[in-house]
């Protein structure tokens, strides 16, 4: 028998956790006509956590977010926010605020009117409203624009107004629907860090929807990778990246080499697999599945070393293969090497460009590729 590897509990620091989850989804389904947009999701989001729903378009991530916000109602299942069942409660009676894709600022109102709208609806007195609007705009580092209309602001500024408009209400939960999608790369990177900081400062639970894996890795406490209306894997960015459970997850997040292998046997140290043309390799014991038959071996390109002269052709405790260098692609921070293995499989290897003008390998040259069995993940599909 194989021992189940326990899922490592690595959410936000304990000090921010109170007993109950901030959001609970219980067996939530959503169908639109014939289409199952969300196909049975159960999920606990912790207090103050930054949780990202990550997946390709049409995977059900936005529908899930909209159900938490109350813009769609589940076909079946139940959603709890702060311990309360939401049922068919409309958005205006949920302790949740949303930052919409493309911001959805009210075009006929000034920035200040936009931000104070929620406070007005909640009946906050005028003097307090003004102060909180000021504070909120200050928090998103956007003072001095109160009197302007949204159309007079840049995309990045509109983004900040949308954030201020949501956060000024001090919601227990902030929902963010691809809020950075419309910004250019540099601004997006800056906003990623700011969002993360805001999450820590205000202490609200953030649920963030994106299809951008890098964004998810950068900001999240945990990531739920979704496809076809289901959560495929839930874990910290490190777990998702280093220990993907399925081929989809490994493929969607970062670059990965996939090799078709046959399982030869296993022991406490790991699994022995055979790669056609290259012989036996060692792989890490997979989480929760029994290694058998034909499987996929996944190795990240940056976990592989390239060596020119391998004395004796072996490195103790490591997998060593030989291959021919097929192509070299220089991409600034690193160089990509494409290696053709004896069995015809291609392997991509990244090497950081620490020193320039080193004794570079030439195409056609025979090289050794070496990687640790712990970096070699066996995947079921």
């Amino acid at each position: 028998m194989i021992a189940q590897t326990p899922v490592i509990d690595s959410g936000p620091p304990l000090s921010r956790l109170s007993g109950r989850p901030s959001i609970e989804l219980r067996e939530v389904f959503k169908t639109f006509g014939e289409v199952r947009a969300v196909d049975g999701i159960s999920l606990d989001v912790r207090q103050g956590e930054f949780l990202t729903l990550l997946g390709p378009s049409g995977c059900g991530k936005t529908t899930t977010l909209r159900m938490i916000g109350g813009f769609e109602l589940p076909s079946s299942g139940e959603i709890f926010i702060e311990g309360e069942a939401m049922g068919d409660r409309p958005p205006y009676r949920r302790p949740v605020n949303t930052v919409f894709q493309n911001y959805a600022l009210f075009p006929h109102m000034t920035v200040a009117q936009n931000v104070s709208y929620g406070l007005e609806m909640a009946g906050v007195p005028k003097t307090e409203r003004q102060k909180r609007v000021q504070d909120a705009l200050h928090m998103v580092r956007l003072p001095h624009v109160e009197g302007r209309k949204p159309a007079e602001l840049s995309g990045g500024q509109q983004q900040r107004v949308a954030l201020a408009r949501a956060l000024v209400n001090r919601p227990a939960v902030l929902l963010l629907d691809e809020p950075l999608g419309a910004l250019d790369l540099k601004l997006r990177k800056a906003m990623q860090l700011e969002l993360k900081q805001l999450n820590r400062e205000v202490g609200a639970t953030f649920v963030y929807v994106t299809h951008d894996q890098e964004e998810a890795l950068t900001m999240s406490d945990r990531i739920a990778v979704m496809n076809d209306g289901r959560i495929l894997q839930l874990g910290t960015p490190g777990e998702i990246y280093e220990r993907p459970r399925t081929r989809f997850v490994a493929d969607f997040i970062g670059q990965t080499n996939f090799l078709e292998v046959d399982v030869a046997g296993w022991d406490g140290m790991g699994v022995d697999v055979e790669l056609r043309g290259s012989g036996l390799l060692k792989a890490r014991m997979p989480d929760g599945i029994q290694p058998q038959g034909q499987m996929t071996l996944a190795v990240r390109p940056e976990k592989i070393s390239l060596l020119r002269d391998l004395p004796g052709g072996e490195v103790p405790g490591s997998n060593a293969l030989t291959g021919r260098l097929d192509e070299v692609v220089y991409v600034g921070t690193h160089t990509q090497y494409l290696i053709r293995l004896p069995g015809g499989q291609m392997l991509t290897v990244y090497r950081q460009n620490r020193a320039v003008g080193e004794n570079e390998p030439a195409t056609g040259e025979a090289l050794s590729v070496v990687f640790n069995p712990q970096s070699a993940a066996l995947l079921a599909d």
Partner: protein
Amino acid sequence: MVYLFLYLPLFVVVLYSFSATKVNAWPIKGYTLDWYRELLVDRDILESIRLSVVIGLIAASIAVILGTLTAFALDRFNFPGKPAIRFFVVMPIVLPGIVTGVALLSFFSMLGWPLSKWTIIVAHGTFCITLILNNVVARLGQLPRRLDEASADLGAPPGRTFWRVTFPLIRPAILAGAVLAFTLSFDEVVVTFFLTGREKTLPLLIWGRLRQGISPEINAAATVIIAVSLAGVLLSNRLSKQAALGG
């Protein structure tokens, strides 16, 4: 050339309305505002202008309410026969006035309604609704539904969302439609001709007086109609542009 063709006759009418002689003759001998002064003391004409304004205002108001409600129904809900409704609502504009006039006339006589300004108002309302409807449907189509959602998300129930977000954003479109509707109603002849009772709207009065020849006073009255129409169309355009800017 096209513009000359379109606007030269209008220009001539306007010019003659300032002519000092009693007969329309070229070249114009001198200029005077006498005819406008006469217009102001002519009880029949004043009465007819008043009637035209009242009919235009009421017809446009009815159209604003019904047209906006229909536009909302068309935009927000899916129901069987929706395309058919969109199509049929446009009919009053496409149909020749004479058809609409005859149809409504027999309709009213069937109901046993005596012809009066109210029958005219209902008739004008039919094509006015179309104008409002088209304007508001177009505007609602441009409005991202997300704005309603954002408002709900910030704690506003549907009623407050309508008055604080949706209505201010479609208001220019409604106004543009209303102004255009008023303008069309103000100078409508054919349908009105079928449905009028004893009272005469300004265009009908002019029509009646033409039998006595084109007097400069008629030119002056026509100029008033041109001015109202022009102002209406310009204002409507202005408002439409404002609506498009999201103002």
